[in-house]
């Protein structure tokens, strides 16, 4: 029994998706000549600006391709579903966005992505383009605090990319954009919960089992097992579990500001995300924190997985300014 999808051949899904994206958003996006899997902002890269290249596997839309556009990422390298892109499209991205000020790679901390993007960076170095790399590691569920640097990057990408993209848009130097990106990453924490599996277009099988009354706390955005599996709880209890962990990690003081993302994994209705947001905001108020901005919706998905994550970015003046800075992407705008 195959899972139900509105696709043609599973092998063609990513390329056909990109066709559909370029047809819908041709005003903002184009494919690089050198690679159809390198999607570039029409109005992003410019001389003297640090180029920001993001990327990773497909299946997380609008992450990554949807965050390409002026003020955010200059290009995205697109992999197969849940698979890092090979070096070629990443290198094509670098070539397209290099404005002479260097290029920053940003992507989630996964072994495959690291190997492929590193190879691309080596190839870029041979063309005398300086490429630096910042990995996102916002998923607090994926490793204990003493091994933070091994954590996965998940929905918090959204804030971390946004901050770095705004820094580059402000024409900061490569060193400065890299500093901002690392700072944003350290200040961003995400915790997720999955209620159902997802399925790859090529296999059309559920990629893991979850009992009819179960949820998994901390599941990764590719269905990687999380921290713990247990009975499905009410929304407030789920959010409390998330917020307790996030507060622990964040170490914010009363009066501090945060930006919030309540993210759906693909099959969870906005109704549920807003019900979660109600509790998130209640917990922030109780902790004496101020919500500077809130986004609710599907920002980093896992195909048709049901579930959600909460991300808090602990702001300072610089991060608040960068998060507020306008951007114009195919699937995300700040005005």
């Amino acid at each position, binding site marked *: 029994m195959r899972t139900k999808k509105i696709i043609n051949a599973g092998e063609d899904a990513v390329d056909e998706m990109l066709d559909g994206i370029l047809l819908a958003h041709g005003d903002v996006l184009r494919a690089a000549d050198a690679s159809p899997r390198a999607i570039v902002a029409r109005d992003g890269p410019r001389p003297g600006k640090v180029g920001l290249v993001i990327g990773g596997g497909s299946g997380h839309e609008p992450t990554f391709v949807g965050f390409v556009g002026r003020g955010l990422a200059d290009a995205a390298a697109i992999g197969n579903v849940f698979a890092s892109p090979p070096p*070629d499209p990443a290198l094509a991205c670098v070539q397209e966005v290099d404005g002479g000020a260097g290029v920053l790679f940003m992507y989630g901390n996964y072994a495959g992505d690291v*190997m492929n993007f590193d190879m691309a960076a080596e190839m870029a170095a041979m063309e005398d383009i300086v490429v630096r790399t910042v990995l996102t590691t916002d998923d607090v569920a994926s490793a204990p605090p003493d091994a933070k640097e091994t954590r996965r990057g998940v929905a918090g990408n959204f804030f971390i990319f946004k901050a770095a993209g705004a820094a580059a848009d402000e024409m900061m130097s490569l060193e400065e954009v890299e500093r901002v990106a690392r700072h944003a990453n350290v200040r961003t924490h995400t915790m997720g919960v999955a209620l159902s599996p997802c399925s*790859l277009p090529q*296999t059309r099988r559920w990629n893991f089992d979850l009992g009819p009354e179960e949820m998994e706390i901390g599941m*990764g955005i590719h269905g990687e*097992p999380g921290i713990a599996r247990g009975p499905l709880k009410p929304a407030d209890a789920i959010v409390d579990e998330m917020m307790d962990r996030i507060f622990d990690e964040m170490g914010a003081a009363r009066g501090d500001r945060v930006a919030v993302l309540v993210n759906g994994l693909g099959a969870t209705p906005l109704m549920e995300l807003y019900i979660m947001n109600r509790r998130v905001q209640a917990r922030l108020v109780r902790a004496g924190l101020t919500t500077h901005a809130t986004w609710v919706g599907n920002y980093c998905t896992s195909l048709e997985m049901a579930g959600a994550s909460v991300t808090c970015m602990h702001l300072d003046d610089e991060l608040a300014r960068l998060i507020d800075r306008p951007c114009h992407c195919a699937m995300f705008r700040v005005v």
Partner: protein
Amino acid sequence: MAVTGADLIGAFAAIAAKMAAERDALCALDGEIGDGDHGIGMALGFGAVREALAELGDDAAPTEVLNTAARAFLSAVGASTGPLYATALMRAGAAVKGKDVLADGDAAALIAAMAEGIAHRGKAAPGQKTMLDAWVPAAAAAEAADGSFAEVLAAAAAAAEAGAEATAEMQATMGRAARLGERSLGHRDPGAVSAAMLIGVLAETLR
């Protein structure tokens, strides 16, 4: 016996067929401790290798075959396996550079080069529950085997098989499964299982 470039092309075609047949089983293994796509990458990658090699003439030198395979695998796959197998195949190509045909002694060199390439690119060590836990024992067995090309590969295949089985008892400390801690116990590593399949097909075809 002497192994030609054409023999290698035939071996890669057999690997492609094997990975296509085992695609869903490998995905299921990866679903237990990873992201469920390992079979897709292996099938896609060796499918692309087979297609790229079909463009080469039957007189292609072993190094050219291995280098072509490396590039084709990498561009088609990405993921973790792309760089790992691309590097392995590049190393294998370098190890037999200049040779028109491979002799018995080259079998161990090929397997050793593959293992080194994977270790170099992935920075893992044996015991971390990765494909290296198939490749490193395979290289050691090949080194020790000292017989015909086919006998060396058979020894390597048996060791890889045992190595892959042994990963079930390992706790992952590398790759996606590392975040699982103890929950990775009891599951074989998909990359080690596919490595054992790959070496098994080599042993069956290059004889």
